[in-house]
């Protein structure tokens, strides 16, 4: 279980997180919604301690990760997967080497098994034919899918997705959403998903959180979104089901 307790974070004069407290239960998929710049990615980076809070603590199974020594932090991070907004593929490595990187670093798996595992992971994101390409040869969507394969290859207990479907076509977005759901159902993976993609949110999430100006405006079951009276929550829901308006010319 991951708990964020009264997290405050400021960059210069901008207060990004304003005393956010949240609990993420094991095995649950939570989507974090909010307008651009509302602090969603910053929140996610606190969970992996890429950022330290100005005030407040992040607890994982009751332990304050801010007090972890380097080797404890590394052990904790081995249980996590993180899909970055821009995929963050290593430019000097091929697609195959990118996906194989976590296995080679953290396991003593023989090379022939690594190949099988990498090709299986690339199969999850329909990119087996791109294994020998370099990241510079890939489109934005392909990069994101390779990033997803890399973060999933060690089958982490907790997956953090920073806009997993942004920049993807609707069909691929749907496949990625299916994959997030499959991971949760097959392996009991806990998912924290930052997204603007409401169809993806409705498909994968058990719970939704809406952040605005560093505060939580909504925290509840994904199905409760449509019943919320909060204007911003309503806007988020309405835009997700919006149809072409009738124009009276």
């Amino acid at each position: 279980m991951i708990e964020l307790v009264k997290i405050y974070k400021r960059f210069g004069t901008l207060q990004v997180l304003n005393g956010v407290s949240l609990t993420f239960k094991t095995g649950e998929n939570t989507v974090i919604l909010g307008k651009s710049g509302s602090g969603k990615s910053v929140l996610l980076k606190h969970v992996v301690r890429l950022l330290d809070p100005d005030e407040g603590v992040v607890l994982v199974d009751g332990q304050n990760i801010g007090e972890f020594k380097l080797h404890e932090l590394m052990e904790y991070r081995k249980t996590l997967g993180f899909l970055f907004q821009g995929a963050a593929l290593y430019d000097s490595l091929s697609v195959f080497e990118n996906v194989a990187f976590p296995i080679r670093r953290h396991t003593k798996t023989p090379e022939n098994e690594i190949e099988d595992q990498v090709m299986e992971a690339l199969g999850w994101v329909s990119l087996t034919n791109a294994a020998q390409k370099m990241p510079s040869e890939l489109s934005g969507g392909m990069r994101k899918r390779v990033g997803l394969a890399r973060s999933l290859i060690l089958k982490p207990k907790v997956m953090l997705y920073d806009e997993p479907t942004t920049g993807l076509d609707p069909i691929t977005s749907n496949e990625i959403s299916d994959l997030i759901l499959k991971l949760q159902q097959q392996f009991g993976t806990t998912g924290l998903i930052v997204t603007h993609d409401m169809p993806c949110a409705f498909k994968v999430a058990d719970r939704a959180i809406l952040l605005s100006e560093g505060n939580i405006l909504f925290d509840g079951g994904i199905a409760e979104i449509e019943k919320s009276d909060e204007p911003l929550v309503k806007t988020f829901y309405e835009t997700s089901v919006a149809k072409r308006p009738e124009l009276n010319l």
Partner: protein
Amino acid sequence: MERFQPFFIWFGESALFLKQFFICLFTQKFEWRQFLQQFDEIGSRSLILVGISGLAIGVVLSMQFNATLARFGAESMLPSMISLSVIREIGPIITALVVAGRVASGIGAELGSMRVTEQIDALDVSAVDSFNFLVVPRIMAGIIALPILTVYCDFIAIIGGYFGILIERTITLQEYISAAIRFLGPDDIFPGVLKTTVFGLIITFVGSFNGYKTTGGTVGVGLSATNAVVLSSLLIIVAEVVLVKISILFF
């Protein structure tokens, strides 16, 4: 005092960065594979550039000294003068400045782009200590590669000096080499070569620091690369003054 604040912040961050380097070096597993890659990048791939610079410097020194020594009828001292000048001062500083131009900017730009595209964060999240993985091997490669490149540059520059003499008069290579090493002693060779370990540290440290701490997107990457070259070149020249004084005291 307030306008000096950024300088003090920079100085403090640099000191902490250097401290982190030594802590990682002595407490964490050394990344040999990364080290060999960087040694190849900094060392092997600088050979042509350093060689051409050394050759040109040798020829130029030879022609300049020849004209000056001829005024005093001391042309026979030319090989010794070339070898002493090259080995004590010119070889180390030319090697360091040439490598600074190529390597410091490369490291600054590479680590800078890794920072702004979140590749460094991705390493950290993958339970890989990005500092130990990226910075320590680069600095160690610089510290070890620079003295080797300097010896290579010295050798090429002395050979260049021979070609310079051949333009003016005839001398066999054997006579030239024998005259060149006549007055050379260990106290000429060791200070010149050893101080380049400091130059190697400066080049790779400044490049790594600027790259690793990059902010501000692609503009920041460009700034990091530029600052790395400018600052490392400046620090090499300042360090040269200090190291010459130290070497005079000890040798």
